[in-house]
């Protein structure tokens, strides 16, 4: 009996196995009825009982008895039933979730396939997304690093740099605040909470031969409190260490401490040589402590800003930062501080107050390229907009081509929501891939920008590590792409799809035509503006490169050393002697610094004939040079002669042609005298100076101008602790031989620096060149996007007008006239766009004016080339759609698709 049963079961398996391996699809729809689970459980249990009953009855039991025993054997039916239902519902949830993902996967797969089916289209769309979003991310990262991020101080919105404006040649420069005035501010100013002086220095740390060059920030005891920072280990400076004769101490910055001392806590109390003097390390300050206005690099160490006699007398300036009291406007603070400063002058120096206007500037606003960056940010935001427009365009153009496909699917019963979901998925997939590519573009862009950044924009080198900006922008950009996709998809799907199928697409209304035309005009205009800006900067940089220097920079190298004042003369003699032995060496001379690294002295000059009465001080470039400097540099004297042994004692100087002309406009300067009417006995040129020679104007950098007044003094008159050998050197590896030379004469703490004078001069135009490169890249991008946009809109119009073109051809229109029709459309749009763009450029280039250095803002070269280039690109963009239009077969087109 049992054996028989087993056989029956086995047979049942074999018959059902074949038709049950694959579940019927309709079963999925049974899930819509939730009661199904409970019923299924009941059915299953009922089947079991019935089988048992059959079994028992076959064994001879009565029907009632069989049912009773079968039910009893099942035991606690209710518990089993409810457990089965719970498990069933759990499976149900899982299944629904799996269904959703399965559907998504299908859609994504379908989207990928349909994107792969149109590789050209997909590539263009992806390129647009990746470039648009990537560029935006790059520029916003830069703007964030350079302009937005404020100093991380408490009350950062009230923190300002206090500086004064002074004119040097044609340019305005900023100078610091007299130390004496800071004391007055601290005691008497009611508009500010706090004021801190700070300074920048660089020098050798350690003893030779292991000395390394470090950047030092000079601060006083209040600086850490002002910046809201505490030493990581050790302590802040104490007030004794701020006194001229006090103990010498330094603080290390965290990054320098980790790099140089492996973050060892033992450094506290260690004595190191800085600037040739032993100093005790008293603490380490956190890496987050930043100092604004640091020119090239971050500080490695911090040293006390010890007031010097020159600082006390008001001759030497210090940099200063103030924190305004809450609610005080910068204007009100400026006025009060200016008044106090003027009074401090009279009290301390009994001399004329210096009429140099005080300026309070936000630390992040000190960049010269600030406006250019603001413009770039604006441009790139617009560029992203252009990219978005392009994608919407491309989707629309594609929508037109696919309308038939959608209409057929709609007619076959696909629901509208299903079609929209499909289209949205497709654009989402597009956006995801594009977004991923954009991250790569942005990352590469930042790497490149960091590589070509001017040394001044040191903050830029931290940008590429700031990954969260990249990811946030990428997410925003993807969202952007999704919205566009949704809009385009809704637009495609909302049309009366039934009509499309019935009458063909040529008859569908041409809605959105004006909008599309406007988009294209906007794109062309925007890229014209960008292109003109880039061309202006290219012109400016080109001009700067050809700036007459006033001296001969050919094969000119400079090797600078640090030295002491007492040793300088002997060291100079040694340098000359050894330099003659360098292979390939030409003439050589000595100066205190390299030609492009001279300092500017503020003075208001007077002559016996024309006394100064409270003139605004001007910046004068001061050179300390050897007598043969002029002949070696190729600066033939215009009049007079060069220094001799007694020149220093007799206060004899040479002046630039520009200064001679300024002081004695009517005649010869030789033998005449002048002096500085401003400042105390420690001020430069306080005593009468006699002019013994006039030399041609020479530039310090390429962006300044050669008409800066300059004064040349004998080398020995300088109190600077440096000396530079200037030498003309030919040969294969001049820098290598100069390195060997430097090593042969190097002495303790001399830290030789070798540079090519011409290359250093070129550094001065790093900022305009930097902005030029960025702008040129974006202009190229803009033009590319505009071309894509134009291509998209003309292609779309050709697709829509296929039947019209067919009719025209059937009625005798030549291919040439059809081509004219299509290209004419494109050209009309392009010309309007170019015109608008040129007007925009005329207005927008105001923002880059400070970088143009004499090139006119409405430079015909830039405007002309820009317009021509865009016009050519526009025509090129129309060529492919034009070929498509002329290739229309009238017979097929008219017959109706």
């Amino acid at each position, binding site marked *: 009996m049992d054996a028989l049963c087993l056989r029956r*079961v086995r*047979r049942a*398996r074999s018959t059902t*196995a074949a038709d049950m391996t694959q579940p019927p699809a309709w079963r999925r729809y049974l899930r819509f009825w939730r009661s199904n689970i409970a019923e299924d459980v009941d*059915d299953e249990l009922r*089947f*079991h009982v019935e089988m048992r009953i059959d079994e028992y009855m076959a064994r001879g039991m009565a029907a009632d008895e069989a049912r009773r025993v079968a039910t009893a*054997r099942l*035991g606690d039916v209710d518990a089993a039933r409810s457990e*089965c239902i719970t498990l069933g519902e759990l499976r149900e949830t899982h299944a629904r979730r799996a269904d959703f993902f399965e559907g998504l996967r299908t859609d994504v797969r379908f989207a990928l396939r349909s994107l792969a089916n149109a590789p050209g289209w997909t590539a263009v769309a992806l390129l647009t997304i990746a470039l648009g979003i990537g560029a935006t991310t790059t520029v916003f990262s830069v703007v964030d690093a350079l302009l937005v991020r404020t100093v991380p101080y408490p009350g950062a919105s009230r923190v300002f740099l206090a500086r004064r404006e002074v004119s040097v040649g044609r340019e305005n420069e900023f100078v610091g605040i007299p130390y004496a005035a800071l004391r007055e501010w601290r005691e008497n100013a009611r508009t500010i909470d706090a004021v801190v002086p700070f300074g920048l220095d660089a020098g050798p740390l350690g003893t030779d031969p292991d000395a390394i060059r470090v950047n030092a920030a000079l601060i006083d005891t209040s600086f850490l409190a002002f910046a809201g920072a505490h030493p990581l280990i050790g302590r802040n400076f104490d007030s004794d260490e701020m006194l001229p004769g006090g103990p010498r101490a330094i603080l290390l910055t965290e990054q320098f401490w980790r790099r140089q001392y492996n973050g060892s806590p033992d450094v506290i109390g260690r004595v190191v040589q800085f600037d040739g003097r032993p100093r005790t390390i008293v603490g380490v300050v956190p890496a987050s402590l930043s100092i604004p206005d640091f020119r090239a690099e971050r500080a490695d160490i911090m040293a006390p800003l010890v007031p010097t006699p020159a600082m006390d007398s008001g001759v030497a300036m210090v940099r200063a930062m103030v924190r305004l009291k809450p609610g005080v406007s910068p204007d009100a603070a400026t006025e009060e501080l200016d008044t106090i400063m003027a009074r401090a002058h009279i009290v301390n120096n009994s001399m004329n107050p210096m009429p140099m206007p005080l300026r309070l500037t936000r630390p992040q606003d000190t960049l010269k390229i600030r406006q250019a960056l603001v413009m770039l940010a604006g441009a790139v935001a617009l560029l992203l907009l252009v990219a978005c427009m392009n994608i919407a365009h491309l989707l629309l153009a594609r929508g037109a081509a696919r309308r038939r496909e959608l209409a057929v699917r709609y007619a076959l019963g696909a629901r509208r929501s299903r079609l929209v979901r499909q289209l949205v998925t497709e654009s989402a997939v597009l956006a995801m891939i594009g977004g991923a590519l954009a991250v790569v573009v942005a990352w590469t862009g930042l790497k490149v920008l960091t590589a070509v950044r001017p040394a001044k924009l040191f903050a830029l080198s931290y940008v590429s590590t700031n990954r969260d900006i990249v990811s946030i922008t990428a997410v925003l950009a993807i969202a952007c792409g999704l919205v566009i996709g949704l809009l385009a998809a809704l637009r495609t799907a909302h049309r009366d799809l039934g009509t499309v199928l019935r009458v063909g697409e040529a008859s569908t209304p041409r809605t959105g035509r004006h909008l599309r035309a406007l988009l294209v005009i906007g794109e062309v205009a925007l890229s014209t503006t960008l292109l003109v800006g880039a061309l202006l900067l290219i012109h400016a940089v080109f001009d700067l490169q050809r700036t007459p220097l006033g001296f001969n920079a050919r094969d000119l190298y400079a090797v600078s050393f640090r030295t002491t004042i007492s040793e300088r003369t002997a060291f100079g003699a040694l340098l000359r002697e050894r330099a003659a032995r360098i292979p390939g060496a030409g003439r050589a001379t000595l100066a205190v610094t390299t030609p492009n690294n001279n300092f500017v002295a503020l003075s208001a000059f007077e002559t016996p004939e024309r006394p100064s009465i409270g003139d605004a001080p001007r910046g004068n470039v001061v050179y300390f040079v050897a007598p043969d400097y002029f002949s070696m540099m190729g600066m033939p004297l215009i009049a007079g002669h060069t220094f001799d042994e007694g020149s220093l004692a007799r206060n004899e100087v040479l002046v630039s042609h520009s200064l001679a002309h300024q002081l004695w406009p009517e005649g010869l300067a030789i033998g005449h005298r002048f002096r500085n009417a401003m400042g105390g006995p420690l001020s430069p040129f306080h005593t009468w100076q006699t002019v013994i020679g006039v030399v041609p104007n020479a530039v310090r950098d390429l962006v300044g101008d050669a008409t800066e007044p300059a004064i040349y003094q004998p080398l020995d008159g300088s109190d600077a602790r440096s000396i530079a050998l200037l030498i003309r050197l030919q040969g294969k590896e001049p820098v290598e031989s100069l390195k060997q030379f430097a090593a042969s004469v190097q002495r303790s703490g001399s830290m030789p620096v070798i540079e090519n004078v011409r290359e250093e001069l070129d550094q001065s135009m790093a900022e305009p060149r930097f902005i030029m490169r960025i702008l040129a890249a974006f202009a190229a991008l803009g033009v590319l996007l505009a071309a894509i946009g134009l291509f998209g809109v003309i292609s779309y119009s050709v697709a829509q007008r296929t039947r019209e073109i067919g009719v025209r051809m059937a009625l005798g229109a030549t291919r040439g006239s059809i081509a004219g029709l299509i290209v004419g459309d494109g050209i009309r749009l392009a010309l309007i766009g170019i015109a608008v763009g040129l007007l925009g450029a005329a207005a927008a280039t105001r923002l880059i004016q400070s970088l143009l250095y004499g090139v006119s803002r409405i430079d015909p070269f830039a405007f002309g080339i820009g317009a021509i280039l865009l016009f050519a690109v526009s025509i090129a963009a129309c060529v492919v759609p034009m070929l498509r239009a002329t290739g229309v077969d009238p017979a097929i087109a008219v017959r109706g698709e």
Partner: protein
Amino acid sequence: MPEHSVEVLRGTLDLLILKSVSWGPTHGYAVARWIEQATDDVLRIEEGSLYPALHRLETRGWISAEWGLSENNRRAKYYTLTAKGRAQLRVETVTWTRFAYAVFAALEAPPQPT
């Protein structure tokens, strides 16, 4: 019906179910019957716990279920071993066999020397 049937150990039931559905689609009643017959009625399963056990295995993905018609034309739920279930069956068979041998070995072992 034999008098001394053993209560199926928890966990053992899962193993037996997996084994019983390993030849092809099987409904719950057939599982119960196979266990009785294959063990000569020694192992008498608690039928109330059989179905929750089946559903548990289904939830875990070790067996899959499908409705079909039985040999006498009734609507019945058939269970099939999945690939995951087959792997599980292999593991548990090994574990169980080792366990049983261990118990045997212990029982056959000579008396402990004192």
